[in-house]
């Protein structure tokens, strides 16, 4: 991949946008299925925040990559290999414990990223981030509350949280990978190299897990590839469902 200055900023922004969109769609899949009405509403509200954040980021990507693509083009007309979201966000919802753990891991990462992006040299990104910081603070609070309740809850809920953590933890390594794109973006002041967000993320997550009587899994497996468009199996199915209407009926409106 050859990248100019604008190229690095565009890819960097697209990665964050794809993280938001894919996580948003996963959470939207909980609609009408969550364990309580309050959480049905909470998960879909969080999904809506993420969708809004994705829209802002796609609009900015389109300016940076100069392709003139619309938000819908990015969301509905790219194939799996063109998505550069991390693998963690595309993992299936599983049970409520799995979604809770995924939310804790993702929202803590995103909050650290947004906080750092508020000082981006890219004014549009800084503006999107300023808004997203407050929204994502609520997302992290929600995930934290449920992690504490379920981790330090019944034997059954504790066991499910442990299983979820064991499944998802390996995917967190990818969040902090540094490469040519992120290094260039960092040098330009567009955004932080994700590597630099790890101490804060790790500090918060391990503290909450500790309070929830959960143990951080030891894992040497570090699946990766999402940022290069190489995804896990569930992602293709998710995209097919998400894109089918738009592709089958181009230009369709409500």
């Amino acid at each position, binding site marked *: 991949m050859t990248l100019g200055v604008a190229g690095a900023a565009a890819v960097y922004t697209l990665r964050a946008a794809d993280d938001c969109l894919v996580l948003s769609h996963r959470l939207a899949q909980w609609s009408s299925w969550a364990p309580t009405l*309050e959480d049905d*509403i*909470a998960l879909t*509200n*969080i999904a*809506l*925040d*993420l*969708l*809004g*954040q994705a*829209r*802002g980021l796609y609009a900015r990507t389109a300016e940076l990559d100069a392709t003139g693509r619309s938000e819908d083009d990015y969301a509905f007309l790219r194939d799996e290999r063109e998505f550069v979201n991390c693998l963690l966000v595309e993992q299936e919802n599983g049970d409520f414990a799995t979604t809770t753990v995924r939310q804790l891991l993702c929202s803590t990462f995103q909050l650290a990223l947004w906080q750092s992006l508020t000082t981006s040299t890219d*004014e*549009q990104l*800084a*503006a*999107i981030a*300023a*808004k*997203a*910081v*407050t*929204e994502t*603070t*609520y997302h992290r*609070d*929600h995930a934290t*509350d449920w992690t504490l309740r379920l981790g330090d809850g019944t034997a059954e809920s504790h066991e499910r949280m442990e299983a979820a953590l064991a499944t998802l933890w390996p995917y967190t390594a990818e969040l902090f990978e540094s490469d040519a794109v992120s290094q260039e973006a960092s040098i330009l002041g567009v955004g932080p190299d994700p590597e630099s967000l790890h101490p804060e993320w790790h500090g918060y997550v391990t503290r909450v897990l500790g309070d929830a009587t959960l143990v951080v899994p030891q894992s040497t497996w570090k699946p990766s590839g999402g940022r290069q468009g190489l995804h896990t199996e569930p992602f293709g199915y998710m995209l097919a469902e998400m894109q089918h209407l738009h592709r089958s009926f181009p230009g369709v409106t409500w």
Partner: protein
Amino acid sequence: MNAIDEIRSAAGAIPDPEMPALTIADLGILRDVRIDASGHVDVDITPTYSGCPALDTIREDVERCVRDQGYADVTVRTVLSPAWTTEWMSEAARVKLREYGIAPPRQGFDLKPLTIAVLCPRCDSTRTHELAHFGSTQCQAVRQCAACGETFPHFKEH
């Protein structure tokens, strides 16, 4: 009143689609109105939340309103900077929210834990607690009053 003030006051009076007791001027959603020599009108609006689904409706409402004022050539832009926070809400808006049954956002919010109580909009008690972080719209949480038992929405600080 000059043309800009007229447009601003007409557009500003448009009710928020999700909280019709409040206008978009009350909420601080209407940011700026400009008019150039050729009579082209530019209106800036800002979302309260990134994914606020009401924003598209508000944009259409503003376009229609400005055309009804006799300006056929209008562009409504969404501006993100500076980011909207609940501090942009007017005092009048806070009073209207309360009368509408929604506890207004507390002031002085800067991401530090808030220690000021949220008052029950029905009985003014300070003994209220949160039932759910997320409510019927993105901007609202659900609380309950221990004094009168009322369950009420609270416009979240953000």
